[in-house]
């Protein structure tokens, strides 16, 4: 009996935590553009052609 009440308290706290974090991310525009971040993470910077480090092992 007591354990159920405790579990409910824990689960609700967790759920509210997730709700708040979701609303926060929504507010900060994380869902405004759902396409470009998916490709942006795959862009990489080419290693700069730097002769000083270009020593073959």
């Amino acid at each position, binding site marked *: 009996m007591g354990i159920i009440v405790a579990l409910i308290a824990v689960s609700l706290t967790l759920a509210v935590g997730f709700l708040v974090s979701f609303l926060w991310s929504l507010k900060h525009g994380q869902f405004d553009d759902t396409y*470009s971040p998916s490709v942006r993470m795959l862009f990489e910077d080419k290693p700069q052609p730097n002769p000083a480090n270009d020593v073959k092992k």
Partner: protein
Amino acid sequence: MNTSVVESLRCFHCGEPCDDILYFEDRPFCCEGCKTVYEILDTHNLCDYYQLDGHSGLTLKNAVAGSYAHLDAPDVRRKLLTFDSPELSKVNFQVPSIHCVSCIWLLENLRKLNAGVFKAEVSFGRKTVTIDFDPSRVKLSELAHLMASVGYAPVIRLDETEVAKKPTHRGLLYKLVIAGFAFGNIMLFSFPEYLGLEANDDVLKSLFSWLNLALSVPVFFYSASEYFTSAWKSFRQRQINIDVPIAAGLLALFLRSTFDILTATGPGYLDSFSGLVFFLLIGRWFQGKTYESLAFDRDFKSYFPLAVNRLAGKDWTSAIIYELKKGDVIKIRSMEIVPSDAVLNDSDAFFDYSFVTGEAKPVKVKRGDLVYAGGRLIGKPVVLTVEKSTSQSHLTSLWNNEAFRKTEESQYKKIIDRSARKFTWVVMALAVVTAGVWQWYAPQHMWLVLTSVLMVACPCALALAAPFTYGSMLRVFGQHGFFLKNADVIERLACIDAVVFDKTGTVTHGREPGVEFVGDLDATELGAVKLLTGASTHPLSTIVSKSIHRPLHENITQFKELPGKGVQGMIGDRFVQAGSANFVGFRENLDPRASYVFIAIDNNIKGYFIITVKIRPNLKHMLSRLGTTCAALLSGDNDADRGSMRAVFPASASLLFNQDPHHKLAFIQSLQQQGKNVLMVGDGLNDSGALKQSNVGIAVSDDSGIFTPACDGILDGKQLPQLDKFMALAKYSSIILKIAFGISFFYNTIALGVAVTGHLTPLVAAILMPVSSISVVGFSTFAVNAVARRKLGAVN
């Protein structure tokens, strides 16, 4: 012999066939612009651009080197910048040419092209790029110029800088998320009640009930608030809309449940309540999808440049067009638009008025003649003296018409509100009768039964049918290149019984005339003709030159342009002439309605080019399927094309020529006075009055980056032959909607039966409500997609 377009080398940058091949590092380029972009990218080590996406490059063949100097003016700067400080400024540019991964990559690497840029971030959906830069190291104008130089010219318009665009759907999402959260948790806490609790679990029972109540308070006061305010408003205007019975139902559910829980007489119906709000908001969200990158509300200002070169003393400085006064001297370059009515100071020039009048052929203007605002210069730069300010120009007077002031939503009564009206009266009557009967026989149960009736009568499924039917159809249309402003347009499209077309740019390809050669020329001779005509700025020469894809590397000597006659010159050892029939001495009679360019080499007539307007393919079938619904063709052109148009249009359609924008508007009005619902299909500024006046105005566009006038929908030019199918689908959506209404009424009747007899338990309500909503949503979504697949075929 007819010329065939020879498949020549393709440009390394833009992938278009090359007319004159330029080589750089063994790579072919079609024009100087494309080559320059490659050079810029190459020197900055950014050639990955070409590997990320197969067809990333944008042709710069038709690009106009615009001046961005006006961006540094303090007023403009203030409007454009979202943040400004001496070290850091932020600007948000609209870039319609963003279309692929490479675009994102290149724009986000802008900092490698200019050290003054800190960061650039692309929003693909909105086609915007936000740039953080150091204003002391790079000016705003330089930034815009840099973007333009790699093919991503930002679009900067006065009207858009005035109102900042804001995302509107977020508020709804918050409400949706909170309702969904509450719904899920209330369901969990309600389960034990349905499964049956032991008698000694009373503490748990009341705990669950109180938790449910706590969770549903934000749903009632925040998520559902719109329904209450909307119902209250419509109640005060004595117009009953769908929100009235919904609000009554929600209120009954919440108050009854609160009462039950407070008095500990039952668990309440809070699961049904929160579920209902959740489903209703999903419907709203689904219907609310809009095409953010497309603009449906542009007026004439969007067509005009922001600034022009004005003579101040002895220097040309950049001036904002709204500052232009009578007497100002301005300079317009090729392909630029004249911003206000002005007098030509230079000798002859050609202006393309297709924006304003729809007339496809450029008009020749002599020194001292008046040039109207909206004309596009073709050829060499000219100097003009301003005659009237932009706001008083001939063209802008169209916007003073009352058609541009009316708000269209007010006239139209939606199907859903018409149904809701009847529905509400029936429910109210039923509730009163039931309450009366119960009051008579068992007064202690009267309130319970009355609230039950109001609860189940809540037309949730009814309210969901329209958003899901029209919302799904909106998405299907979008996949097939037909973008509507909102879902309500589909409903209006279903009632259309007269379709009116514009000619130039709609029925015909605006900028792509059909060119055919009759006669005999070999490859070298064709190359020579291309070279000769390419040297002239006459519109016909340009068309002929562009149509030949055989470059010849020779020099022209003794080049001479004879006004009104043609051009001539020595290419190699051959004397080439191109021009009118008289010029080369051609004697036969030809159809006088088309335009011709005659070719003579060494004084022998070799043949002629016929230049005709090109009608879009497959239009005839579409128009014949439309039959009598196709009411008219309105063209700003003269009636040279009457014959070819007659061949395409059904006999019942009237063909009207020489129509100016005011005529077009008046024609639509007269059709509407005959009780017709008119669909106008147009493309240019000259149709904007008609598009606005018509019940549904659709703008045809061949390029999503290009500007379309204010309209209800934008149709991809390639999809125009499907127009009748789109209209048929709109009609089908109304049928589907009516069937969905039927299903919803069926459930309501069952539920009312249960409620009237006093048997509505929370469990019955919790099952019946989601089942009815889900079956209506499922049916309408499935039916729309099935019908669309049969009519339009699958999307490739």
